[in-house]
Protein backbone atom coordinates (compact mmCIF):
# COMPACT_ATOMS: atom_id res chain seq x y z
CA UNK A 1 0.00 0.00 0.00
CA UNK A 2 1.34 3.38 -1.04
CA UNK A 3 0.23 5.10 2.13
CA UNK A 4 1.89 2.75 4.60
CA UNK A 5 5.27 4.46 5.12
CA UNK A 6 3.75 7.90 5.55
CA UNK A 7 1.01 6.50 7.76
CA UNK A 8 3.47 4.77 10.09
CA UNK A 9 5.45 7.95 10.59
CA UNK A 10 2.36 10.07 11.07
CA UNK A 11 1.01 7.67 13.64
CA UNK A 12 4.33 7.41 15.45
CA UNK A 13 5.07 11.13 15.61
CA UNK A 14 1.74 12.90 15.48
CA UNK A 15 -1.27 10.84 16.55
CA UNK A 16 0.34 8.56 19.08
CA UNK A 17 2.21 11.37 20.89
CA UNK A 18 -0.89 13.56 20.89
CA UNK A 19 -2.88 10.81 22.58
CA UNK A 20 -0.02 9.77 24.83
CA UNK A 21 0.39 13.36 25.97
CA UNK A 22 -3.18 13.31 27.18
CA UNK A 23 -2.54 10.02 28.98
CA UNK A 24 0.68 11.21 30.59
CA UNK A 25 -1.03 14.28 31.93
CA UNK A 26 -2.94 12.06 34.37
CA UNK A 27 0.21 10.47 35.80
CA UNK A 28 2.87 11.74 38.14
CA UNK A 29 6.42 12.29 36.96
CA UNK A 30 8.33 9.04 37.35
CA UNK A 31 11.90 8.75 38.54
CA UNK A 32 14.24 5.78 38.63
CA UNK A 33 13.21 4.97 42.19
CA UNK A 34 9.63 6.14 42.10
CA UNK A 35 7.65 4.88 39.12
CA UNK A 36 4.95 7.20 37.87
CA UNK A 37 1.50 6.51 39.21
CA UNK A 38 -1.96 7.54 38.20
CA UNK A 39 -2.83 10.80 39.92
CA UNK A 40 -6.04 11.78 38.17
CA UNK A 41 -6.40 15.51 37.63
CA UNK A 42 -3.70 16.42 40.13
CA UNK A 43 -1.47 17.85 37.41
CA UNK A 44 -4.34 19.98 36.21
CA UNK A 45 -5.16 21.37 39.62
CA UNK A 46 -1.45 22.08 40.06
CA UNK A 47 -1.53 23.91 36.76
CA UNK A 48 -4.50 26.03 37.77
CA UNK A 49 -2.58 27.08 40.88
CA UNK A 50 0.61 27.70 38.95
CA UNK A 51 1.11 31.44 38.65
CA UNK A 52 3.76 31.00 35.98
CA UNK A 53 1.26 29.12 33.83
CA UNK A 54 -1.21 32.00 33.94
CA UNK A 55 1.54 34.50 33.33
CA UNK A 56 2.75 32.53 30.32
CA UNK A 57 -0.77 32.21 28.96
CA UNK A 58 -1.31 35.94 29.33
CA UNK A 59 2.01 36.64 27.62
CA UNK A 60 1.06 34.33 24.79
CA UNK A 61 -2.21 36.15 24.34
CA UNK A 62 -0.45 39.53 24.17
CA UNK A 63 2.13 38.06 21.85
CA UNK A 64 -0.69 36.95 19.54
CA UNK A 65 -2.50 40.29 19.79
CA UNK A 66 0.73 42.16 19.17
CA UNK A 67 2.06 40.15 16.26
CA UNK A 68 -0.95 38.96 14.25
CA UNK A 69 -2.78 42.13 13.15
CA UNK A 70 0.41 44.13 12.71
CA UNK A 71 2.24 41.54 10.64
CA UNK A 72 -0.81 40.91 8.45
CA UNK A 73 -1.36 44.62 7.84
CA UNK A 74 2.29 45.19 7.00
CA UNK A 75 2.29 42.12 4.78
CA UNK A 76 -0.69 43.42 2.83
CA UNK A 77 0.88 46.83 2.45
CA UNK A 78 4.11 45.25 1.24
CA UNK A 79 2.27 43.08 -1.26
CA UNK A 80 0.36 46.03 -2.68
CA UNK A 81 3.58 48.01 -3.07
CA UNK A 82 5.56 45.19 -4.58
CA UNK A 83 2.70 44.41 -6.94
CA UNK A 84 2.58 48.04 -8.11
CA UNK A 85 4.91 49.96 -10.38
CA UNK A 86 7.70 51.09 -8.10
CA UNK A 87 11.22 51.83 -9.19
CA UNK A 88 13.55 48.95 -8.24
CA UNK A 89 10.66 46.71 -7.33
CA UNK A 90 12.75 43.54 -7.35
CA UNK A 91 15.13 44.98 -4.80
CA UNK A 92 12.30 46.06 -2.51
CA UNK A 93 10.71 42.65 -2.75
CA UNK A 94 13.99 41.04 -1.84
CA UNK A 95 14.40 43.30 1.21
CA UNK A 96 10.94 42.41 2.48
CA UNK A 97 11.42 38.73 1.94
CA UNK A 98 14.96 38.27 3.27
CA UNK A 99 14.01 37.80 6.96
CA UNK A 100 11.99 34.76 5.91
CA UNK A 101 15.02 32.77 4.81
CA UNK A 102 17.01 33.58 7.96
CA UNK A 103 16.79 31.31 11.00
CA UNK A 104 15.07 32.83 14.01
CA UNK A 105 18.19 32.14 16.05
CA UNK A 106 20.35 34.21 13.72
CA UNK A 107 17.78 36.98 13.64
CA UNK A 108 17.65 37.03 17.42
CA UNK A 109 21.43 37.21 17.60
CA UNK A 110 21.37 40.32 15.46
CA UNK A 111 18.46 41.95 17.25
CA UNK A 112 19.95 41.22 20.65
CA UNK A 113 22.59 43.69 19.77
CA UNK A 114 20.00 46.38 19.10
CA UNK A 115 18.39 45.89 22.46
CA UNK A 116 21.47 45.51 24.65
CA UNK A 117 21.81 48.38 27.12
CA UNK A 118 24.62 50.90 26.63
CA UNK A 119 26.48 49.22 23.78
CA UNK A 120 23.34 48.31 21.83
CA UNK A 121 22.34 50.22 18.75
CA UNK A 122 19.11 51.65 20.18
CA UNK A 123 20.92 52.99 23.19
CA UNK A 124 23.67 54.42 21.04
CA UNK A 125 21.14 56.31 18.98
CA UNK A 126 19.31 57.37 22.14
CA UNK A 127 22.64 58.56 23.54
CA UNK A 128 23.21 60.79 20.52
CA UNK A 129 19.76 62.26 21.00
CA UNK A 130 20.55 62.91 24.63
CA UNK A 131 18.25 60.26 26.08
CA UNK A 132 19.31 57.97 28.87
CA UNK A 133 20.19 54.33 28.35
CA UNK A 134 17.58 51.74 28.92
CA UNK A 135 17.58 48.00 29.48
CA UNK A 136 14.83 47.07 27.03
CA UNK A 137 15.03 43.34 27.59
CA UNK A 138 15.57 43.64 31.32
CA UNK A 139 12.32 45.45 32.06
CA UNK A 140 9.21 43.29 32.40
CA UNK A 141 7.17 46.14 30.92
CA UNK A 142 9.06 46.40 27.66
CA UNK A 143 10.51 42.96 27.06
CA UNK A 144 7.48 41.43 25.39
CA UNK A 145 7.13 44.42 23.07
CA UNK A 146 10.73 43.92 21.99
CA UNK A 147 10.01 40.29 21.16
CA UNK A 148 6.84 41.28 19.30
CA UNK A 149 8.56 43.91 17.17
CA UNK A 150 11.23 41.46 16.15
CA UNK A 151 8.69 38.76 15.33
CA UNK A 152 6.69 41.12 13.13
CA UNK A 153 9.86 41.96 11.27
CA UNK A 154 10.54 38.27 10.76
CA UNK A 155 7.01 37.25 9.73
CA UNK A 156 5.63 40.06 7.57
CA UNK A 157 7.65 39.24 4.47
CA UNK A 158 6.54 35.64 4.60
CA UNK A 159 2.86 36.60 4.72
CA UNK A 160 3.45 39.13 1.95
CA UNK A 161 4.10 36.23 -0.41
CA UNK A 162 0.58 34.88 -0.02
CA UNK A 163 -0.96 38.28 -0.64
CA UNK A 164 1.30 38.84 -3.60
CA UNK A 165 0.23 35.54 -5.13
CA UNK A 166 -3.41 36.45 -4.59
CA UNK A 167 -3.02 39.96 -6.01
CA UNK A 168 -1.37 38.63 -9.13
CA UNK A 169 -4.25 36.27 -9.71
CA UNK A 170 -6.79 39.12 -9.75
CA UNK A 171 -7.91 39.89 -13.31
CA UNK A 172 -6.54 43.26 -14.52
CA UNK A 173 -9.95 44.12 -15.99
CA UNK A 174 -11.20 44.70 -12.47
CA UNK A 175 -8.98 47.69 -11.96
CA UNK A 176 -9.80 49.10 -15.38
CA UNK A 177 -13.51 48.73 -14.73
CA UNK A 178 -13.13 50.50 -11.39
CA UNK A 179 -11.22 53.31 -13.08
CA UNK A 180 -13.91 53.73 -15.71
CA UNK A 181 -16.48 53.96 -12.97
CA UNK A 182 -14.40 56.71 -11.45
CA UNK A 183 -13.58 54.82 -8.27
CA UNK A 184 -10.61 56.16 -6.35
CA UNK A 185 -7.72 53.93 -5.54
CA UNK A 186 -8.56 53.62 -1.87
CA UNK A 187 -12.20 52.93 -2.67
CA UNK A 188 -11.20 50.29 -5.20
CA UNK A 189 -8.90 48.65 -2.67
CA UNK A 190 -11.41 48.73 0.15
CA UNK A 191 -14.47 47.61 -1.79
CA UNK A 192 -12.99 45.35 -4.46
CA UNK A 193 -9.51 44.10 -3.67
CA UNK A 194 -9.79 43.58 0.04
CA UNK A 195 -12.98 41.48 -0.10
CA UNK A 196 -11.47 39.38 -2.87
CA UNK A 197 -8.43 38.81 -0.71
CA UNK A 198 -10.55 37.52 2.14
CA UNK A 199 -9.65 33.83 1.65
CA UNK A 200 -5.97 34.78 1.66
CA UNK A 201 -6.43 36.87 4.77
CA UNK A 202 -8.06 33.95 6.54
CA UNK A 203 -5.31 31.61 5.45
CA UNK A 204 -2.64 34.02 6.63
CA UNK A 205 -4.54 34.59 9.84
CA UNK A 206 -4.57 30.89 10.64
CA UNK A 207 -0.87 30.69 9.93
CA UNK A 208 -0.22 33.71 12.09
CA UNK A 209 -2.18 32.24 14.98
CA UNK A 210 -0.31 28.94 14.76
CA UNK A 211 2.94 30.87 14.63
CA UNK A 212 2.04 32.77 17.75
CA UNK A 213 2.08 29.45 19.57
CA UNK A 214 5.01 28.00 17.71
CA UNK A 215 7.59 30.76 17.33
CA UNK A 216 9.57 30.70 20.53
CA UNK A 217 13.13 30.21 19.22
CA UNK A 218 14.03 33.85 19.76
CA UNK A 219 13.44 33.54 23.50
CA UNK A 220 16.39 31.17 23.82
CA UNK A 221 18.71 33.94 22.68
CA UNK A 222 17.03 37.14 23.76
CA UNK A 223 15.57 36.57 27.20
CA UNK A 224 15.23 32.91 28.22
CA UNK A 225 11.69 33.84 29.13
CA UNK A 226 12.83 36.43 31.63
CA UNK A 227 12.93 38.71 33.44
CA UNK A 228 10.75 36.90 35.92
CA UNK A 229 8.85 35.05 33.14
CA UNK A 230 7.71 38.37 31.68
CA UNK A 231 8.48 37.19 28.15
CA UNK A 232 7.96 33.45 28.47
CA UNK A 233 5.50 31.81 26.08
CA UNK A 234 3.58 28.56 26.44
CA UNK A 235 5.75 26.37 24.23
CA UNK A 236 8.90 27.79 25.83
CA UNK A 237 7.51 27.04 29.26
CA UNK A 238 6.75 23.48 28.15
CA UNK A 239 10.34 23.14 27.04
CA UNK A 240 11.60 24.48 30.36
CA UNK A 241 9.38 22.22 32.44
CA UNK A 242 10.25 19.12 30.43
CA UNK A 243 13.95 19.59 29.83
CA UNK A 244 15.19 21.94 32.54
CA UNK A 245 12.98 20.90 35.45
CA UNK A 246 12.55 17.34 34.13
CA UNK A 247 8.87 17.22 35.00
CA UNK A 248 7.53 15.40 31.96
CA UNK A 249 4.12 14.80 33.47
CA UNK A 250 3.48 18.48 34.06
CA UNK A 251 4.94 19.31 30.66
CA UNK A 252 2.41 16.90 29.16
CA UNK A 253 -0.37 18.67 31.01
CA UNK A 254 0.76 21.98 29.57
CA UNK A 255 1.03 20.41 26.12
CA UNK A 256 -2.60 19.36 26.41
CA UNK A 257 -3.52 23.02 26.83
CA UNK A 258 -1.55 23.82 23.71
CA UNK A 259 -3.16 20.98 21.76
CA UNK A 260 -6.63 22.03 22.84
CA UNK A 261 -5.92 25.61 21.74
CA UNK A 262 -4.77 24.38 18.34
CA UNK A 263 -7.81 22.12 18.05
CA UNK A 264 -10.09 25.05 18.77
CA UNK A 265 -8.39 27.04 16.02
CA UNK A 266 -8.71 24.09 13.65
CA UNK A 267 -12.42 23.76 14.32
CA UNK A 268 -12.87 27.51 14.05
CA UNK A 269 -11.07 27.49 10.73
CA UNK A 270 -13.24 24.64 9.50
CA UNK A 271 -16.47 26.40 10.37
CA UNK A 272 -15.33 29.83 9.29
CA UNK A 273 -13.58 28.89 6.07
CA UNK A 274 -16.52 26.82 4.91
CA UNK A 275 -18.73 29.87 5.22
CA UNK A 276 -16.49 32.41 3.64
CA UNK A 277 -14.63 30.69 0.88
CA UNK A 278 -17.60 29.48 -1.16
CA UNK A 279 -17.18 31.93 -4.02
CA UNK A 280 -13.79 30.57 -4.86
Amino acid at each position, binding site marked *: MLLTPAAILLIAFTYYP*AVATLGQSFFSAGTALKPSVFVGVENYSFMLDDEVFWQVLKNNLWYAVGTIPASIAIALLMAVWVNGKLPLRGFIRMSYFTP*TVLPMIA*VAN*IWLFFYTPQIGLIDQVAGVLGLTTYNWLGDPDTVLTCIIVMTIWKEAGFFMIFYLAALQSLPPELEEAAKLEGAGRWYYFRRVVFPLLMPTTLFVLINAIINSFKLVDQLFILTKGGPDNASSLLLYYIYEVAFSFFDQAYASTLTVVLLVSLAVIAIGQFVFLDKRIHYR
Partner: protein
Amino acid sequence: MTRRAVSIRDGVEAGAAWLLAAIWLLPLLYAFWSAFHPSEYAVRFELLAPLTLDNFREAWSQAPFARYYLNTFLLVTSILAAQFVLCTLAAYAFARFEFRGQNIAFALVLVQLMIMPEVLIVENYRTMSQLDLVDTITGIGLPYMASAFGIFLLRQTFKTVPKELEEAARVEGCNALQILWKVYVPLARPTYIAYGLVSVSYHWNNFLWPLVITNSVTTRPLTVGLAIFGAPESGVEWPIITAGTLLAVAPLLIAFLLFQRQFVQSFMHAGIK
Protein backbone atom coordinates in the same frame (compact mmCIF):
# COMPACT_ATOMS: atom_id res chain seq x y z
CA MET B 1 -6.92 64.41 -9.12
CA THR B 2 -4.51 66.43 -11.20
CA ARG B 3 -1.58 64.74 -12.79
CA ARG B 4 0.72 66.61 -10.49
CA ALA B 5 -1.06 65.47 -7.36
CA VAL B 6 -0.93 61.91 -8.63
CA SER B 7 2.79 62.08 -9.24
CA ILE B 8 3.38 63.54 -5.78
CA ARG B 9 1.30 60.79 -4.26
CA ASP B 10 3.22 58.16 -6.21
CA GLY B 11 6.45 59.71 -5.05
CA VAL B 12 5.41 59.63 -1.42
CA GLU B 13 4.31 56.05 -1.79
CA ALA B 14 7.55 54.99 -3.41
CA GLY B 15 9.41 56.76 -0.63
CA ALA B 16 7.44 54.92 2.02
CA ALA B 17 8.02 51.59 0.29
CA TRP B 18 11.72 52.37 0.16
CA LEU B 19 11.83 53.37 3.79
CA LEU B 20 10.17 50.13 4.82
CA ALA B 21 12.62 48.17 2.67
CA ALA B 22 15.48 49.99 4.37
CA ILE B 23 14.12 49.17 7.81
CA TRP B 24 13.73 45.57 6.78
CA LEU B 25 17.30 45.35 5.51
CA LEU B 26 18.88 47.33 8.32
CA PRO B 27 19.44 44.49 10.81
CA LEU B 28 21.13 42.38 8.18
CA LEU B 29 23.26 45.24 6.91
CA TYR B 30 24.24 45.97 10.45
CA ALA B 31 25.30 42.35 10.93
CA PHE B 32 27.54 42.67 7.88
CA TRP B 33 29.00 45.90 9.19
CA SER B 34 29.93 44.53 12.55
CA ALA B 35 31.19 41.19 11.21
CA PHE B 36 33.58 42.77 8.72
CA HIS B 37 35.03 45.45 11.01
CA PRO B 38 37.25 45.33 14.10
CA SER B 39 35.27 45.39 17.34
CA GLU B 40 36.05 49.03 18.15
CA TYR B 41 33.99 49.98 15.08
CA ALA B 42 31.02 47.84 16.09
CA VAL B 43 28.90 50.92 16.75
CA ARG B 44 31.05 53.60 15.16
CA PHE B 45 29.93 54.00 11.62
CA GLU B 46 32.83 55.51 9.77
CA LEU B 47 33.00 55.07 6.08
CA LEU B 48 36.72 54.35 6.08
CA ALA B 49 36.77 51.92 8.99
CA PRO B 50 39.27 49.16 8.18
CA LEU B 51 37.79 45.93 6.89
CA THR B 52 38.83 42.64 8.40
CA LEU B 53 38.11 38.94 8.23
CA ASP B 54 39.45 38.28 11.73
CA ASN B 55 35.98 37.93 13.21
CA PHE B 56 35.19 35.12 10.82
CA ARG B 57 38.50 33.43 11.56
CA GLU B 58 37.82 33.70 15.28
CA ALA B 59 34.29 32.39 14.99
CA TRP B 60 35.41 29.51 12.82
CA SER B 61 38.09 28.51 15.33
CA GLN B 62 35.91 28.91 18.43
CA ALA B 63 33.12 26.63 17.34
CA PRO B 64 33.12 23.52 15.13
CA PHE B 65 31.25 25.19 12.29
CA ALA B 66 32.53 22.72 9.72
CA ARG B 67 30.91 19.90 11.63
CA TYR B 68 27.69 21.88 12.07
CA TYR B 69 27.60 22.52 8.34
CA LEU B 70 27.97 18.83 7.67
CA ASN B 71 25.22 17.97 10.17
CA THR B 72 22.80 20.49 8.76
CA PHE B 73 23.58 19.36 5.23
CA LEU B 74 22.99 15.71 6.09
CA LEU B 75 19.83 16.59 7.98
CA VAL B 76 18.31 18.73 5.25
CA THR B 77 19.13 16.33 2.42
CA SER B 78 17.92 13.22 4.24
CA ILE B 79 14.67 14.89 5.23
CA LEU B 80 14.12 16.16 1.71
CA ALA B 81 14.85 12.78 0.09
CA ALA B 82 12.53 10.96 2.48
CA GLN B 83 9.81 13.58 2.09
CA PHE B 84 9.92 13.33 -1.69
CA VAL B 85 9.51 9.56 -1.64
CA LEU B 86 6.91 9.33 1.14
CA CYS B 87 4.83 12.29 0.06
CA THR B 88 4.86 11.24 -3.59
CA LEU B 89 3.52 7.79 -2.74
CA ALA B 90 0.91 9.07 -0.34
CA ALA B 91 -0.17 11.92 -2.60
CA TYR B 92 -0.55 9.50 -5.50
CA ALA B 93 -2.75 7.26 -3.38
CA PHE B 94 -4.94 10.19 -2.37
CA ALA B 95 -5.11 11.71 -5.84
CA ARG B 96 -5.79 8.70 -8.03
CA PHE B 97 -7.09 5.79 -5.98
CA GLU B 98 -10.37 5.35 -4.25
CA PHE B 99 -10.50 3.47 -1.02
CA ARG B 100 -12.72 3.31 1.98
CA GLY B 101 -12.22 6.04 4.53
CA GLN B 102 -10.23 8.12 2.08
CA ASN B 103 -11.64 11.43 3.20
CA ILE B 104 -11.14 10.66 6.85
CA ALA B 105 -7.59 9.52 6.17
CA PHE B 106 -6.86 12.72 4.28
CA ALA B 107 -8.36 14.84 7.03
CA LEU B 108 -6.17 12.98 9.52
CA VAL B 109 -3.12 13.79 7.43
CA LEU B 110 -4.06 17.45 7.45
CA VAL B 111 -4.17 17.39 11.25
CA GLN B 112 -0.39 17.54 11.09
CA LEU B 113 -0.58 21.01 9.54
CA MET B 114 -1.96 22.16 12.88
CA ILE B 115 -0.11 19.92 15.28
CA MET B 116 3.43 20.14 14.11
CA PRO B 117 6.15 17.97 15.65
CA GLU B 118 7.42 21.03 17.54
CA VAL B 119 4.36 20.97 19.73
CA LEU B 120 4.87 17.36 20.76
CA ILE B 121 8.49 17.62 21.86
CA VAL B 122 7.85 15.93 25.19
CA GLU B 123 6.30 12.72 23.86
CA ASN B 124 8.46 12.59 20.75
CA TYR B 125 11.53 12.80 22.92
CA ARG B 126 10.28 9.83 24.90
CA THR B 127 9.64 7.87 21.70
CA MET B 128 13.09 8.69 20.38
CA SER B 129 14.74 7.50 23.55
CA GLN B 130 12.81 4.23 23.32
CA LEU B 131 13.98 3.86 19.73
CA ASP B 132 17.49 4.74 20.86
CA LEU B 133 17.57 7.60 18.38
CA VAL B 134 18.32 10.45 20.77
CA ASP B 135 21.27 12.48 19.54
CA THR B 136 21.20 11.13 15.99
CA ILE B 137 20.49 12.99 12.78
CA THR B 138 17.82 10.42 11.97
CA GLY B 139 16.19 11.31 15.27
CA ILE B 140 16.02 14.98 14.29
CA GLY B 141 14.58 14.25 10.88
CA LEU B 142 12.20 11.37 11.46
CA PRO B 143 9.16 13.28 12.79
CA TYR B 144 9.24 15.56 9.75
CA MET B 145 9.59 12.99 7.01
CA ALA B 146 5.90 12.28 6.49
CA SER B 147 4.95 15.87 5.78
CA ALA B 148 1.26 16.71 5.56
CA PHE B 149 2.13 19.85 3.65
CA GLY B 150 4.06 17.85 1.06
CA ILE B 151 1.31 15.28 0.69
CA PHE B 152 -1.27 18.01 0.29
CA LEU B 153 0.74 19.99 -2.24
CA LEU B 154 1.58 16.98 -4.39
CA ARG B 155 -1.94 15.64 -4.25
CA GLN B 156 -3.26 18.95 -5.59
CA THR B 157 -0.72 18.82 -8.39
CA PHE B 158 -1.33 15.18 -9.27
CA LYS B 159 -5.05 15.86 -9.50
CA THR B 160 -4.44 18.29 -12.34
CA VAL B 161 -2.68 15.66 -14.46
CA PRO B 162 -5.05 14.57 -17.25
CA LYS B 163 -6.31 11.02 -16.84
CA GLU B 164 -5.72 10.35 -20.55
CA LEU B 165 -1.97 10.46 -19.99
CA GLU B 166 -2.27 7.80 -17.35
CA GLU B 167 -4.44 5.64 -19.58
CA ALA B 168 -2.02 6.00 -22.46
CA ALA B 169 0.79 4.83 -20.22
CA ARG B 170 -1.29 1.92 -19.02
CA VAL B 171 -1.98 0.86 -22.61
CA GLU B 172 1.76 0.79 -23.13
CA GLY B 173 2.00 -1.69 -20.29
CA CYS B 174 3.18 0.43 -17.37
CA ASN B 175 2.16 -0.61 -13.86
CA ALA B 176 1.03 1.88 -11.22
CA LEU B 177 4.49 2.68 -9.93
CA GLN B 178 5.89 3.12 -13.42
CA ILE B 179 3.04 5.45 -14.27
CA LEU B 180 3.79 7.46 -11.16
CA TRP B 181 7.46 7.67 -12.02
CA LYS B 182 7.11 8.33 -15.75
CA VAL B 183 3.98 10.47 -15.93
CA TYR B 184 3.20 12.15 -12.63
CA VAL B 185 6.60 12.93 -11.20
CA PRO B 186 7.96 14.69 -14.32
CA LEU B 187 4.81 16.75 -14.70
CA ALA B 188 4.95 17.84 -11.06
CA ARG B 189 8.47 19.18 -11.33
CA PRO B 190 7.64 22.81 -10.46
CA THR B 191 5.86 21.58 -7.34
CA TYR B 192 8.86 19.50 -6.32
CA ILE B 193 11.14 22.48 -6.72
CA ALA B 194 8.78 24.73 -4.79
CA TYR B 195 8.29 22.23 -2.02
CA GLY B 196 12.00 21.44 -1.93
CA LEU B 197 12.97 25.07 -1.43
CA VAL B 198 10.37 25.58 1.28
CA SER B 199 11.41 22.39 3.04
CA VAL B 200 15.14 23.15 2.85
CA SER B 201 14.66 26.67 4.24
CA TYR B 202 12.44 25.34 7.00
CA HIS B 203 14.80 22.64 8.16
CA TRP B 204 17.94 24.67 7.72
CA ASN B 205 16.39 27.16 10.13
CA ASN B 206 14.56 24.80 12.47
CA PHE B 207 15.70 25.00 16.06
CA LEU B 208 13.52 23.77 18.91
CA TRP B 209 13.26 20.07 18.16
CA PRO B 210 16.93 19.75 17.11
CA LEU B 211 17.86 21.49 20.36
CA VAL B 212 15.85 19.01 22.38
CA ILE B 213 17.01 15.86 20.67
CA THR B 214 20.73 16.57 20.20
CA ASN B 215 23.39 16.81 22.83
CA SER B 216 26.71 16.53 21.08
CA VAL B 217 28.77 18.26 18.44
CA THR B 218 28.48 15.32 16.07
CA THR B 219 24.75 15.80 15.55
CA ARG B 220 23.98 19.45 16.27
CA PRO B 221 22.80 21.43 13.27
CA LEU B 222 23.96 25.01 12.63
CA THR B 223 21.08 26.68 14.42
CA VAL B 224 21.69 24.82 17.67
CA GLY B 225 25.43 25.28 17.37
CA LEU B 226 24.92 28.97 16.79
CA ALA B 227 22.64 29.32 19.80
CA ILE B 228 25.26 27.75 22.06
CA PHE B 229 28.02 29.79 20.50
CA GLY B 230 26.11 33.04 20.77
CA ALA B 231 24.70 32.54 24.25
CA PRO B 232 25.58 35.53 26.45
CA GLU B 233 27.17 33.30 29.06
CA SER B 234 29.70 32.05 26.51
CA GLY B 235 31.30 35.50 26.71
CA VAL B 236 32.12 35.67 23.01
CA GLU B 237 32.58 39.17 21.62
CA TRP B 238 29.87 40.79 19.54
CA PRO B 239 31.52 41.04 16.18
CA ILE B 240 32.53 37.40 16.46
CA ILE B 241 28.97 36.37 17.19
CA THR B 242 27.69 38.29 14.19
CA ALA B 243 30.40 36.71 12.09
CA GLY B 244 29.29 33.28 13.30
CA THR B 245 25.69 34.21 12.60
CA LEU B 246 26.55 35.16 9.05
CA LEU B 247 28.49 31.92 8.64
CA ALA B 248 25.41 29.98 9.69
CA VAL B 249 23.05 31.75 7.32
CA ALA B 250 25.49 32.23 4.44
CA PRO B 251 24.65 29.23 2.23
CA LEU B 252 20.93 29.81 2.36
CA LEU B 253 21.25 33.59 2.08
CA ILE B 254 23.58 33.38 -0.91
CA ALA B 255 21.30 30.86 -2.59
CA PHE B 256 18.38 33.17 -1.94
CA LEU B 257 20.13 36.21 -3.35
CA LEU B 258 21.20 34.31 -6.46
CA PHE B 259 17.89 32.59 -7.11
CA GLN B 260 15.65 35.24 -5.61
CA ARG B 261 12.99 34.92 -8.26
CA GLN B 262 12.76 31.14 -7.91
CA PHE B 263 12.58 31.40 -4.13
CA VAL B 264 9.78 33.92 -4.14
CA GLN B 265 7.93 32.09 -6.88
CA SER B 266 8.31 28.77 -5.08
CA PHE B 267 6.91 30.15 -1.87
CA MET B 268 4.08 31.66 -3.88
CA HIS B 269 3.45 28.40 -5.70
CA ALA B 270 3.36 26.55 -2.40
CA GLY B 271 1.13 29.19 -0.89
CA ILE B 272 -1.56 29.31 -3.59
CA LYS B 273 -2.52 25.69 -3.40
